């Protein structure tokens, strides 16, 4: 049966291709997958997981990670911050039927038209050494026990109207890291972004599971946070315009159409009227069924 039996255009990508694509994205946009304090710009070697970077990134002077504020030490009489990093690594995708990623029982078997995602989330924190704490303690105690009659030079909190004090960031020698395995089930759908007649392929999360964290509420919390990061942070950036599903082959058609007063756009074929599922995730592939729409201007 021809690919274009159900629509004017057809585009598909096999999960082998998708996984290579994901790897390219991670190497060319590392700041989407790595978050850390400013300290790490001088000490890439201290990351939990070494960051694989494409040479073009360094050549363009692009950052390897997105800079974040240090983790505050609560209760310190003067702001003190700790260096940390969070990295998403080892992302792997498995289209239905799921045969390369074993989902945890909480997520069940991979349903039809779904894809399985597996990734690692690694967190590293600079735990101050005993020696460092002993060094800092005398000054901290002075600040901590200062009274209301205090010498203004020893004031604990800044007086009203004065600018906040920059935190003291404790020097880092190494991080203490741990990694958690994350599993997710997701699907693709068509939708508009911005202009109501635009067509984008969006990745939507169905379920997420962090493996075996105790207590269960902590697991829930971590899952919730991760879900939020994915849904509001990472996944929207990966949305693809409809043209990319046919590798922009219709670019010339669109340009030449304009010269004769025609507007050529792509629309997903209606499902189930034209194609049973659109986009479809099956046979280890993501498939898109697309129609060409021509309007006389």
């Amino acid at each position, binding site marked *: 049966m021809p690919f*274009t039996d159900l629509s004017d255009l057809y*585009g598909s*990508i096999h999960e082998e291709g998708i996984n290579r694509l994901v790897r390219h994205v991670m190497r060319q*946009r590392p700041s989407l997958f790595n978050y850390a304090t400013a300290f790490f710009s001088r000490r890439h070697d201290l990351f939990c997981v070494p960051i694989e970077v494409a040479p073009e990134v360094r050549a363009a002077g692009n950052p390897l990670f997105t800079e974040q504020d240090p983790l505050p030490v609560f209760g310190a009489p003067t702001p003190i911050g700790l260096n940390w990093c969070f990295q998403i690594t080892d992302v792997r995708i498995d289209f239905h039927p799921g045969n390369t990623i074993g989902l945890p029982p909480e997520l069940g078997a991979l349903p039809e038209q779904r894809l399985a995602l597996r990734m690692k989330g690694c967190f590293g924190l600079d735990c101050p050494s005993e020696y460092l704490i002993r060094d800092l303690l005398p000054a901290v105690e002075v600040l901590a026990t200062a009274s209301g009659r205090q010498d203004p030079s020893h004031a604990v909190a800044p007086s009203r109207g004065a600018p906040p004090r920059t935190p003291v960031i404790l020097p880092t020698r190494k991080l203490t890291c741990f990694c958690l395995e994350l599993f997710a089930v997701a699907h693709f759908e068509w939708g508009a972004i911005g202009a109501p007649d635009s067509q984008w392929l969006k990745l939507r999360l169905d379920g997420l599971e962090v493996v075996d964290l105790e207590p269960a509420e902590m697991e829930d919390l971590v899952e919730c946070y991760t879900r939020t990061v994915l849904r509001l942070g990472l996944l929207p950036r990966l949305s693809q315009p409809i043209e990319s599903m046919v*590798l922009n082959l219709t670019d*010339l058609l669109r340009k030449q159409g304009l010269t004769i007063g025609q507007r050529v756009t792509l629309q997903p074929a209606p499902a189930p009227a034209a194609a049973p599922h659109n986009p479809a995730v099956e046979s280890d592939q993501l498939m898109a069924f697309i129609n060409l729409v021509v309007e006389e201007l």
Partner: protein
Amino acid sequence: MAHMTVAVSEGVFRRSFDLLQRNLVFEKADSASFGSFTAGYDVKAHLEGGSVDLRADGTIRVKELDLRWDRLRFTLGLNIPELCVGGGCVDMPWPIPDICLPRVCIFSGDPDISISPDLAAFVAQEVSFTARLVVRYFDAALPLPSPDLCAPLRVEPPPAHNQWHIHIDPETIDVDLFDFPDIVGDLIEDTLTDAVKALIPGGWVRDLILAIIGSVADLIRTILDIPDEIEEWLSDLFNVSFGLLDSIGTVILDFFSRCNPLYRMDDPLEIMPASNGLIAVRIPVRNLSVSVNDAEMVVQADVGA
């Protein structure tokens, strides 16, 4: 299995082809001397219509593309031979030899006339060809060939970065012969007659000169050395002497096969645009291949490592 597959239905393929072929303009001018006359042409044509059929054997059949002439100017320069009065011989009785009279000529110098009628409205032809699809890799780092024969035919400027190009590669191109109708012969005769008349003053002088010429038609036939109708002679001129059919074929071949891909794909292909100073994310495209069956064109490629 290839990582990426894209299929384009026959209908979309037809539309793509139609939009591309609208840009083909054939333009040529030349002239040649044939001794007693010079003949030349200044022509411009474009393509319209036609049917495109994708076939199970992997070929594309394009039929009945109309070759529409925007300009088909035919220039004919004739050197009017000497026109003279007098001459001839008179029999004399023996022993006196026959006396032959000298001729006196009407013009000092040989007059030339030249006409340039536009015959575009009188001729229409169709073009058909069978083609295959070929994939070419455009390396932006390589300089364009010199001379750049595609310069007048290119629809888009050459890309600034590497691309995969899918070209239609015609194998055999059939162009209908030029077949000028009768009225073209009449038109040329009338135009030449007007040109001859413009040379000479009116009244009985013109009538005499025209009588000496015989009919302009006879004069033309004598100068051009044509036994048949003018329009047949003209058709032969265009089909054979001018070599226009070959030129048209070459332009069509170059336009599609060499100068203008039907489809293009950037390599590497951008999947995330640059933003806020961050570079775009691009994936390398490898092993691009294309095939055709009677329903669609299928493109396959791999994501490079």
